[in-house]
C-alpha cells in the first residue's frame, strides 16, 4: 500500500538537484504512502527515523510508522500537528486548543504514548502560549502559567521564547540572546551529540551556538533547521510574494558555515524538512511527503 520507492523514485528525479557529486550524493528520493493520500504538512521524524507525525487538512494529526506502513490518528485537532515534537522517551508531545465563550484560546499540553496508544493531558488548559519542547530523555511543556517535565531529568533541550534561546544542560537552564532580532527566535534544537544548538533568528537567519551561548556560525536566511547529523543541518529555503510561496527548496548546510548545497530545486516547492535516523523527510506545498537519503563525502 505505502511506499513504491523504485518507480516513484524515477518520477521524482525532477525534484532533485544534481548536488555537488564530490561532496553530497542523493541516494534516493521517494514518495511516502501515496495511497491512501491526503495532504500532509509539518512532518516530524522521531530520532530513529522510524516514525513520523504530521498534520492533515481535515483529519487531524497522524502518525506514520515507516517500519510497517501503518497510519494512526493521534488527534483530530486541526492545528495540533503544526507544532509537535517527539520526546526522548519515544512519546509524542503536542498541544491541543479550545476556545472559551469569549473566544480566548485555552491550550492543553498532551502526550501520546505509542505503547499504550493512549493520550493523556500533561497540563491543565491555560490561556496563552503552551509549547512542547523535546528533550534528549523526555520532553517539557513551556507556558506562562504551568510548566511540565516528563521526568525529573529530561536531559538536554533547547527552545526559544521571544528573542531568547533557552538551553537546558545538566539540569541547568541557560538563556542566550546572541543576535538582535526584533520579531524573535524560532526552531531551536540540540545537535545529536548535544554540543551545539541551532536556532533561527527572524531577520537574521540560522544561528549555531555552543552550550555557553558562544556564536559559532550564521548559516544564512533559511527556515526550519533540523540536525541531519552532528555536522550538518537541513533547512527550508522559501521565497514568497507576501501572499503565497513563489519557490521553496530543501538545502543542506554545514553547521560551521563552510558549506551549503541545494538538495531540491527551488521550483520543487519542497518544504518543512525533518531529520531522523539518517533520513530526511519533507513535504511539498500540496502536501506530498517525500523521503530523501543522502551521502556526504567530506
Amino acid at each position, binding site marked *: 500500500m505505502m511506499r513504491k520507492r523504485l518507480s516513484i523514485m524515477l518520477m521524482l528525479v525532477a525534484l532533485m538537484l544534481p548536488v555537488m557529486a564530490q561532496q553530497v550524493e542523493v541516494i534516493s528520493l521517494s514518495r511516502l504512502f501515496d495511497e491512501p493520500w491526503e495532504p500532509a504538512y509539518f512532518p516530524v521524524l522521531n530520532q530513529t527515523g522510524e516514525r513520523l507525525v504530521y498534520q492533515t487538512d481535515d483529519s487531524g494529526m497522524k502518525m506514520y510508522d515507516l517500519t510497517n506502513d501503518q497510519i494512526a490518528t493521534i488527534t483530530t485537532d486541526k*492545528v495540533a500537528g*503544526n507544532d509537535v515534537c517527539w520526546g526522548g522517551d519515544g512519546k509524542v508531545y503536542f498541544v491541543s486548543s479550545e476556545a472559551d465563550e469569549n*473566544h*480566548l484560546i485555552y491550550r492543553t499540553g498532551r502526550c501520546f504514548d505509542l505503547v499504550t496508544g493512549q493520550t493523556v493531558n500533561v497540563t491543565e488548559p491555560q490561556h496563552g502560549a503552551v*509549547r512542547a519542547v523535546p528533550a534528549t530523555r523526555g520532553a517539557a511543556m513551556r507556558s506562562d502559567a504551568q510548566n511540565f517535565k516528563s521526568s525529573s531529568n529530561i536531559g538536554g533541550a533547547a527552545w526559544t521564547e521571544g528573542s531568547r534561546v533557552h538551553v537546558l544542560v545538566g539540569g541547568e537552564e541557560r538563556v542566550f540572546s546572541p543576535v538582535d532580532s*526584533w*520579531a524573535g527566535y524560532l526552531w531551536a534544537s540540540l545537535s545529536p551529540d548535544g554540543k551545539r544548538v541551532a536556532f533561527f533568528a527572524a531577520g537574521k537567519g540560522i544561528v549555531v551556538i555552543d552550550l555557553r551561548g558562544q556564536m559559532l556560525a550564521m548559516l544564512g536566511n533559511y527556515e526550519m533547521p533540523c540536525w541531519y547529523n552532528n555536522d550538518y543541518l537541513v533547512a527550508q529555503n522559501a521565497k514568497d510574494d507576501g501572499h503565497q510561496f513563489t519557490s521553496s527548496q530543501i538545502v543542506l548546510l554545514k553547521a560551521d558555515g563552510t558549506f551549503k548545497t541545494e538538495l531540491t530545486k527551488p521550483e520543487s516547492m519542497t518544504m518543512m524538512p525533518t531529520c531522523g535516523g539518517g533520513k530526511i523527510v519533507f513535504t511539498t506545498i500540496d502536501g506530498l511527503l517525500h523521503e530523501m537519503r543522502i551521502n556526504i563525502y567530506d
Partner: protein
Amino acid sequence: MKQNIFNLIMAAMVMALTANVMMAQQPHVYINPGHGGYDSDDRNMVIYPFSQGDSAGSWESKSNLRKGLALQEILQKKGYKTSISRVTNTTADDLALSTIVALCNQSGADVFYSIHSNATGTSAVTNFPMVFYRGYTGSPQVANADVLAADLEPYLYASQTTVWTNNYQIWGDWSFRPEWGTQGYGVLRGNRAVANLSEGSFHDYIPEAYRLLGLQYCWMEGWNISLGADKYFDRLDQYDLGVISGNVRDDRIKRLQENPQPFIVYGEDNLMPIHSATVRLLDQNGNEVQRTMTDTLRNGIYTFKYVVPGTYTVEVSEPSHFSQTAEVIVSANAATYQNFYLKRVRDTPPEVVDYSPVWNEGDPAVKCSEQIVLSFNWDMDSVTTCNAFRLEPQVKGSFRWEDSYYRLIFTPDDAFDVNTHYTLTLDKSAEHGGGMAMDEDFVMQFYTQPRNHLTELAVFPYEGAQVHYKTPTVELRVDSMLDTYNLFQKLRVLDSEGNELAWNKRSIKYNKKGDNYGFIRVPLTNDIEPGKTYHLILDRDIADTAGIHLPAARDISFTGVNAGAAKPGMTMFEDFDHENYYLGLYVGYASADSRFETGLLGGAIVIDYHFSRMDSETGLHYGPDWGLEDADWEKPFVLGDKLGMHVWGDMSYNDLVLMFMDHMPYTDAVAVPVCKIDFHGWRYVEMDLSNFEPGVDYFLKEISLKPGSELMGMTGTLKLDNMIRGKSSGINEVPVAGLKVKCDGDYIVASADTWVQGIELLDLNGRVIKSAGGNCLNVANVAHGIYLVRVYINGRSATQKVAIN
C-alpha cells in the same frame, strides 16, 4: 504593626491574584503588517508626484505598517496583549511567511491579523474591504476564523472617509483561490491562532492610494480593526473613548488628474481634497479640545483620537475656503464620521480668459466641426453660464464642463452651417461658483468653411445588397481621410435580433496618406446566414481627420446569400478551372496579369490590373482567340437565352460587360452589361439576353472590364468563376429594397430607398424603347400594353413589369 504587615501581604496577594486573573483573560492579538521593505514583493503604486520606487510614495508595506502600529497602540490602550511581526520597513524585517506563522504560534496569540490592502491588478477599478481565513468559505480550518472575519468587516465598511464601490466580502481562501487547491495564503497555513488576512481597501484605486499615504487614515483602519477584535472578544463595552474622523473636500472643484494617465474616481472622490485645512475639536463651551490638520497628500483626511464621549463642534478652516462647523456626538468605543464640503472664497468677478476658435476678419475660415471653448478665471456656475450663452445664428448643441467648471465646451448637435458668420455672446449674467456675475458681456465671432459633412462615396453592403455569406467584407468610402481612432467601433453589423457581429480586427484596412479617398475595410469574423437579413449601422460621428462627420447615422439592411448555390436548369459554359489555351487576356491602355486559383466553385481566373487611363478605349478583355476553336464558346446565344456568371468584386466601381457578335468573325458587337463592381466578395449575376434581335445567333466574343470610376477603379483585382447558360424564364425581376415602379398617367415613376439614376422602358423582347436620366420617363406616346422597366440605382439595375394603360 503585625496586623498592618499582614494586611499589606494580603493586599499584595490579592493584587497579584487579580493581575494573574486579568492576564489570563487578556486577549492576545498577533499583528502582521503585510509585505515590507520597498522591494520586489512589495506593492508600489506610482502616483503623482512620486516616481517609481520612491519610498515617499504609495507602498503597501508602508500603509500596512502604519495600520499595524496603530492597531498595536490602540489594542494596548484597550488592555490587550499584542505581538507584531515588524515595526520597521526594511527587507530584513520582511519576514518569510513560514516565519511569521511560527512566530504567531510561538506567541500563543488568540487571534492573528495580517494587514494588507488589495489591488485588482487590472484596468478594472474597485474599492471595498475583503477578509480571508483558511479553508472553504463557511468552513474555516481553525474554528471561529469566520466569526472573527464577520466581526471585523462591518467596522471596516462603516468608514465614511473613503468611497466604497461594493459591499465587503468574506472568503475562505480555498474558495477564493480554488486554483491553489488547499495551499491558500501563506500566513494562514499552519497558523494555530484564529487568523484573518484583511485587505482593508484597494490601493490601485488612486484616490484610495492617496488616502493610504495619510497617517490619520491608516490609524483609523487600525481603530476599526480594534473594534472588530472588541466585538469578537465581547469587549465593546470595555473602552470608554471614541474617535472622530472625516474628509475635507471642496464642495464643487474637481479632483486634479495629475497622474501620468487619467484615473477613475467614484462618487465624492470626484471632489478636490483640501490640503492643510486646520480642524479643531471644540467642547460645548467653545474650548479647543484637540487640533489637527489635513495633510498635503491629496486625501483631506482628519482624525481626532481618544475623545471622551460627548457633544462637540468640529471646526474646519482653510484660507482659500469659507470655514465650516458641524456638531458631532462621540460615543464610547465607536467612530464618529463627519465629512466637510467647503465653499471656496471667490473675491473677483468672473471673466473669459481664453477662448477658441479665435478668428478675425481676413483669417482662414473655421472648420464647421469646431467646438466653442471658453476658459474662465474662476470655476463657473453651470446654470447661469449656460443661460448666458447665445449664438447667432442659433445652433442647437450641448455644453460640457472641464477642469472643475473652469472650461466650458459647446458642441453643436450637427456641424455649423457652411460659409456663415457666427457671433457668440456670453451675457454678463454668467456667475462663478461664489455667485458673483461678470462685469461685462463677452463677444466673439467666427466664419465657417464651405464644407460641413463627410460625403459618402460608396458603402458595401449597400441598402438591399445580397451578400455572399462567407465572412463578408464591409467597406465605407468617403471624400476625405477618416480619423481611424476607434473607427471600427463606429460601424456595426447586427443580425435580425440585434446581436452585434464581430469584426476580424486583425484584417482591418484604413486609409493612409496619399490614398484617393478615405476608407475603412473590415471583414466579419464569422459567416452570415443565407436568407437572413442584417443591418450595417454607420454612426454619425464617423469623422475625418478634421472632425467633419457624416450628416446622419445610417441603417443599411442587406441579406445573406450563397452565391455558389446550385442553379437548376443551367449548364456549364466556362468553368475557369484552369488555363484555356483557346482563351486569352487582352488589354487596352492597361497592364494586367492573370492566374488561376481556387475560387468559389473550383478554380477561378484572377486578373490583377492597372488602368493607365480612364476612357472608353481602356479596358480588359478576356475571350477566345478566334484563330483557334473552343466548342463551348462557338455555341451561339439567341434571344431568350440567359447567361450566369460568378464574379468576385473589390468595389472598383468598374463595369463588367459581355461583348457578343452576331456573325463570326469581326462583326458589330452587342454589349450586355453584367454588373458594376460595387461589391466585395463573390456574387452571382444572371443576364437575360433580351436585347438580341430575334432569329439571330450571337457568339460571346469577350468578357470586358471597362473603367468606371477614376477615383476608385484604376487598380484592382477581378475574379471570375463558373459561367453557366440556360433558357430565360421571361421576365427577371431583381429585388431592390424599397423599389417601386408605377405608371401614373403619362409617366412611369420609379422610387427607391436610394438615388434612382436612370430608367429604361423595354418591350418584352428586351429592346429598349425609351430611356431617361432620373426617375421619370414620359410614356405618353407609347402604345398601351405590358412592358419591362429597368431602373438604375447606384450603377445597378433592377427590372420590373409595368402596364401602360
